[in-house]
């Protein structure tokens, strides 16, 4: 069993194998993501009922929550990939960690921006220094730090290692974000979705929200594969098969 796992792991950690196998996956994941997200957004914007207290401004939730979830999930992905890279010196893990940074950064930005816009009609302020919002800002700053490290180093390998260490250190911020709304009394409303109890949300709003989250996750997986493949081409360009692959890019 263990040996089977090791063999599977080795196969997938080979850039060439990954490049070949991920091709159909990114295609189908991408289309599924587009279909599901579009459905969720149309449903959420036009068909979900009006919220009793917040009126229509609550419709921001259908992008706010998915992007916030994703920004955390992507960060954890980066940290795990970075750890794999540091421990087993697997180049592909570093590539994945690197290309996840702009994706996560854009999601953290989107969560903060939509949160600020949602905050204005709901709390009367664009910004408050509450624990949830501040820890999300720290997440965005961590992403910017990772991005800067990747770009500051002359050798990309040094950037990979430095960013992996920063990513691992910054992981402490993730539980802070998660529990900030439950530990401290803040302006930010408590989590809408909980695994342990029934969601305090009507099913007619919950379904489009869950669909939107699913769509965002699928989109992330698709984009992660697409970007990883490009990063493989960029970093392995000395290999012959990579050069052939780059030549074919011009034909498309």
């Amino acid at each position, binding site marked *: 069993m263990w040996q089977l796992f090791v063999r599977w792991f080795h196969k997938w950690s080979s850039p060439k194998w990954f490049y070949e196998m991920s091709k159909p996956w990114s295609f189908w994941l991408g289309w599924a993501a587009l279909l599901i997200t579009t459905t969720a*957004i149309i449903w959420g*914007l*036009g*068909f*979900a*009922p*009006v919220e009793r207290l917040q*009126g*229509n*401004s609550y*419709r*921001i939730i259908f*992008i*706010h929550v998915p*992007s916030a979830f994703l920004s955390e999930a992507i960060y954890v992905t980066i940290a795990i990939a970075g750890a794999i890279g540091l421990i087993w010196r697997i180049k592909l893990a570093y590539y994945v960690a690197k290309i996840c940074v*702009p*994706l996560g950064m*854009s*999601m953290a*930005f*989107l969560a903060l*921006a*939509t949160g600020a*816009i*949602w905050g*204005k*009609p709901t709390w009367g302020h664009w910004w408050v220094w509450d624990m949830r919002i501040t820890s999300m800002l720290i997440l965005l700053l961590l992403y910017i730090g990772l991005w800067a490290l990747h770009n500051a180093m002359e050798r990309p390998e040094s950037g990979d290692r430095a960013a992996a260490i920063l990513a691992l250190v910054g992981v402490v911020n993730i539980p802070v974000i998660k529990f900030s709304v439950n530990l401290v009394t803040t302006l930010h409303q408590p989590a809408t979705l909980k695994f342990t109890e029934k969601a305090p949300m009507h099913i007619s709003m919950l379904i489009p929200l869950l669909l939107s989250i699913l769509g965002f996750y699928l*989109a992330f997986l698709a*984009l992660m594969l*697409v*970007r990883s493949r*490009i990063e493989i*081409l*960029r970093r392995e*360009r000395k290999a012959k098969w990579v*050069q052939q692959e*780059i*030549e074919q*890019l*011009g034909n498309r």
Partner: protein
Amino acid sequence: MPFENISEFIAMGGHGLYVWLSYAIAAVVIGYNLISPRMAKKQLYKEHQRKLRREQS
């Protein structure tokens, strides 16, 4: 149905600015994420062509 007609849908009960601004930012961010891999591919191809030309001359 929460909205009777299209102008009510756009007004969002007075919250139109907030809702549509959020969705517009989301569209820009998602759009950027969709376009940038394409640009990266083009860039990669261009650099490769440049390198080939340099090697020939």
